[in-house]
């Protein structure tokens, strides 16, 4: 079985090379990339079973034991690998359906597929890395391809967003290098298992410095408050499938690295208070940001930040149930967040915009889209019996079991965040799906400075009430300034056209291609399946958390007889 371990990294890299060579033949390119990702799904599933039954699967590359590079697939890594493989496959199929490979005028033809493959290789490598420098290299692989994907086409908005993203991430890479130099100077190795054994001999302050350095680095990647402010600025401008895979996977790689760091290397110094505060602030500030947004993409980016807080909550508790809940939540959240962004891409395609002010009535003329949005949105908010609810219950129970006052505050904060998430997605639902496009259009027309033909129509529309400078539609009220600002910034290409006008023009696509709806629906289905297999999955994450707490399975399989 160990022969399979390097394949999730090797295959996409080879696939990237092949795809680059075949850039003139899109069909062959697609066949290769889809084939590679499908193979990784199978391999990851086999590794998952093997890791569960026979313990961690370890490969020392080139047999340079113990000074070379180790790849380790234990229960946690294998689970992450499987979930990420499924998600990336769905995103790839979706982007093929969208015609990212050439039909879209602003996207370069040939580089999407190879870059995506390198991204997948980087993500897999990060999960498998048994060596801190290898982890750094995999971060660079996935970051570099993410730079390219984020600025695809080089439009003004993407360059603006990309600048912030690239600079923040390069800086975090530099921090990582500083941490690596410090770790090497302190313990003379970069192998995770060896660091873990030698770190006990270090003086406390040195160990704490190393831990904080690494923690800050990983928290930037994972977007933990206050290191999360780059994320909502940079994600929403990318093409929908790119945003989907970033939102689903890249932050979770950071969370994974935090879990490894806290359980494997520094189990004696859980920093519970610090991390709990960070988790609380991440949850609350993230979700408050989400409520303030008037664009669905940005709203979802903020909920992404917010829900990272749940995972950090589980890690911070440093108990078996806490870790188990965090791992479950990571698996759940990867699928759900990616599915939501894919559906958002469908909305953008169908309705021409994701700005809340321009949308309306989607539930009526795209009912399938409504269902596809509704299920993951409710799942995100944690409505029973969906997996989001189960994951949150697991985490909150772990918090109650821990019992300190701060953990109880976190339990309350987590519940509040869940409710506010429900509010945010319900607002989206009410505005984009429930009201009629005419309502949205009439409301837009009321905005100052949006045309001169609207004044006589004001009185004729019963749904709209102008009252002391506010615009009311049904029970939803907006300040005029809100509307004007949001209207100005939303959809810069065609500032004066909303869904209603597009419908009247007949400029909207009649229906969505199945090749786009299929993958998105597939991911929604996966998230429902996670709900149904939640029992066995929680059993699995319990065992994974047990491994992490004990550490001996990791040591003995990586270092063999050298283990203590």
């Amino acid at each position, binding site marked *: 079985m160990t022969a399979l371990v390097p394949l999730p990294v090797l295959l996409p890299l080879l696939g990237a090379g092949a795809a680059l060579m075949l850039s003139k033949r899109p069909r062959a390119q697609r066949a290769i990339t889809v084939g590679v990702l499908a193979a990784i799904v199978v391999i990851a599933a086999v590794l998952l079973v093997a890791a569960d039954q026979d313990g961690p699967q370890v490969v020392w590359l080139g047999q340079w034991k113990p000074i070379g590079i180790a790849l380790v697939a234990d229960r946690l890594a294998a689970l992450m690998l499987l979930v990420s493989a499924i998600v990336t496959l769905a995103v790839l199929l979706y982007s093929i359906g969208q015609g990212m490979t050439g039909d879209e005028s602003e996207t370069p033809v040939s580089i999407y597929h190879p870059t995506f493959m390198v991204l997948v290789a980087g993500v897999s490598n990060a999960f498998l890395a048994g060596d801190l420098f290898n982890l750094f290299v995999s971060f660079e692989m996935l970051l570099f391809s993410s730079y390219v994907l984020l600025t695809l086409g080089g439009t003004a908005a993407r360059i603006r967003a990309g600048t912030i993203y690239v600079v923040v991430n390069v800086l975090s890479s530099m921090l990582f*290098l500083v941490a690596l130099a410090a770790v090497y100077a302190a313990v003379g190795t970069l192998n995770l298992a060896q660091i873990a054994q030698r770190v006990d001999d270090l003086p406390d302050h040195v160990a704490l410095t190393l831990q904080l350095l690494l923690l800050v680095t990983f928290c930037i990647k994972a977007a933990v408050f206050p290191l999360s402010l780059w994320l909502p600025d940079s994600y929403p401008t990318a093409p929908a499938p790119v945003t989907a895979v970033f939102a689903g996977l890249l932050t979770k790689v950071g969370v994974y690295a935090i879990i490894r760091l806290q359980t494997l290397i520094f189990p004696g110094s859980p920093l519970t208070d610090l991390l709990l505060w960070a988790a609380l602030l991440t949850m609350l500030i993230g979700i408050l940001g989400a409520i303030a947004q008037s664009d669905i993409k940005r709203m979802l980016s903020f909920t992404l930040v917010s829900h990272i807080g749940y995972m950090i909550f589980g890690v911070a508790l440093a108990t078996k149930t806490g870790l188990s809940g965090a791992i479950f939540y990571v698996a759940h959240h990867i699928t759900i967040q990616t599915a939501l962004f894919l559906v958002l891409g469908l909305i953008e395609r169908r309705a021409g915009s994701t700005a809340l002010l321009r949308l309306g009535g989607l539930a009526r003329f795209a009912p399938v889209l409504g269902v596809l949005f509704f299920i993951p949105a409710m799942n995100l908010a944690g409505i029973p019996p969906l997996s989001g609810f189960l994951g949150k219950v697991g985490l909150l129970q772990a918090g109650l079991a821990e019992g300190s006052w701060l953990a109880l505050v976190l339990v309350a904060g987590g519940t509040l965040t869940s409710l506010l998430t429900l509010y945010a997605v319900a607002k989206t639902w009410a505005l984009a799906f429930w009201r009629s496009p005419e309502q949205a259009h009439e409301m837009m027309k009321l905005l100052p400075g949006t045309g001169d033909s609207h004044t006589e129509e004001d009185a004729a529309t019963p749904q709209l009430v102008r009252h002391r400078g506010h615009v009311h539609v049904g029970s939803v009220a907006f300040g005029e300034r809100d509307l004007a600002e949001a209207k100005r910034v939303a959809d810069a290409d065609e500032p004066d056209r909303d869904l209603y006008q597009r419908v009247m023009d007949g400029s909207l696509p009649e229906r969505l291609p199945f090749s786009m709806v299929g993958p998105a629906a597939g991911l929604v289905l996966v998230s429902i399946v996670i709900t149904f297999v939640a029992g066995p999955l929680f059993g699995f994450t319990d065992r994974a958390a047990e491994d992490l707490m004990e550490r001996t399975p990791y040591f003995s399989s990586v270092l063999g007889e050298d283990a203590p």
Partner: protein
Amino acid sequence: MQVNLTLLVVVAALMGAGVYLLLERSLTRVLVGLVLISNGVNVMFLVASGRAGTSPIVGSSDPDGMADPLPQALVLTAIVITLGTVAFLLAMAHRSWQLNGNDDVQDDVEDSAIRKLAIDDANSDSYDLSTKGQHEDDPVEEGA
């Protein structure tokens, strides 16, 4: 572990200058700052590798007197990665200059819109229904 003080001073100088440049608004300066920081980090690896020695090639000298080769390998990798990053950032700065006529790092549009909202109507208009308009034009809240 004995530390070479000269190298440490070089690291500190490079890092300090790099951080200063990083805080500038122009992307080119940010880029130069990142290059300085990365060079500082690379020198830091030399500090971490301990005392200098002979070249680490098997058979050329006594293994006990060799320098530690691993940090050098790490530095090489870091240099390659930095090179790629710098090339990419340069391309971005150029593209930004093509599009805007400058390479300044810009504010987020929606972010500044929301910030402006917060300043302009601090007593959020959106919640007017519940208070029946009583707080309208309250100067205290607007200033807050």
